């Protein structure tokens, strides 16, 4: 079988690890015991916090890669490609965070949606990420596009810490942080384990998808360059034919 240029031994291993961790998360999550407060709905704890963590991580990776592109000493075209790849995944995971949160909220809060600080900031985060992806698609010189996108990413990432602390700073319908890593943390061991596995699984899935998205972006760029070179060559030939 012919191997795609976007896969290697490392990415195949990463993909297998992500699939195994995700399967374990789903199995463990769906077999969690019912709780007094939330009945079976607390089983969503295995995926929802992990998805939210990954959405934040992907947005931070986008901002860091953008910063590295903006700094003259570390400027490489690959930082811009990584920022674009990670932003697309940040948008995907933010959308999943909103959907799974809404599905969890309906039976436990009685509503699909409420305009509280956490939910509104999450929706704003998705809008900013979609705006970032739209900016990347505006036709421009690669340098101009990269600069424009990088500055947008650095502004958009500011919503991440505000969203994270929103449940502490304001009174929200959304519960306080699921994990506060203190001795008073009241989360039961099975739920804590399922949530930790969910964090690991979603992070591995993100890493695997990001590597592939980055390589696809590189192939897309190479295709654009080849297309441009062909077009220039064609015009040159036309000009030569006209002058002779």
């Amino acid at each position, binding site marked *: 079988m012919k191997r795609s240029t976007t896969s290697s031994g490392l990415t195949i291993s990463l993909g297998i690890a992500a699939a195994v961790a*995700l399967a374990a998360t*789903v199995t463990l999550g769906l077999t969690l015991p019912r709780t007094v407060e939330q009945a079976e*709905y607390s089983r969503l704890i295995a995926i*929802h916090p992990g998805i939210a963590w990954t959405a934040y991580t992907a947005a931070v990776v986008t901002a860091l890669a953008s910063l590295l592109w903006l700094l003259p000493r570390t400027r490489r075209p690959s930082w811009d490609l990584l920022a674009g790849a990670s932003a697309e995944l940040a948008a995907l995971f933010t959308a*999943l965070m909103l*959907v799974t949160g809404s599905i969890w909220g309906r039976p436990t809060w009685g509503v699909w949606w409420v305009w509280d600080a956490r939910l509104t900031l999450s929706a704003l985060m998705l809008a900013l990420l979609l705006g970032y992806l739209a900016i990347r698609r505006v036709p421009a010189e690669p340098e101009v596009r990269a600069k424009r996108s990088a500055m947008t990413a650095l502004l958009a990432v500011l919503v991440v810490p505000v969203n994270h602390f929103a449940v502490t700073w304001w009174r929200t319908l959304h519960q306080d942080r699921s994990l506060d890593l203190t001795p008073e943390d009241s989360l039961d061991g099975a739920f804590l384990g399922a949530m930790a596995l969910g964090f690991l699984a979603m992070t591995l899935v993100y890493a695997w*998808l990001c590597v592939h998205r980055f390589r696809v972006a590189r*192939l897309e760029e190479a295709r654009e360059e*080849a297309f441009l070179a062909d077009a220039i060559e064609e015009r040159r030939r036309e000009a030569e034919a006209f002058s002779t």
Partner: protein
Amino acid sequence: MGYVWAGYGITLASLAAYAVWLLRRARSLDRRAR
């Protein structure tokens, strides 16, 4: 349990659909590059 299945189902289906799109796109670009 319907909400729980919906949460897990939508998550897995979305991630799988994105992964399939990505691998198909990679294969298509790779084929054109050769």
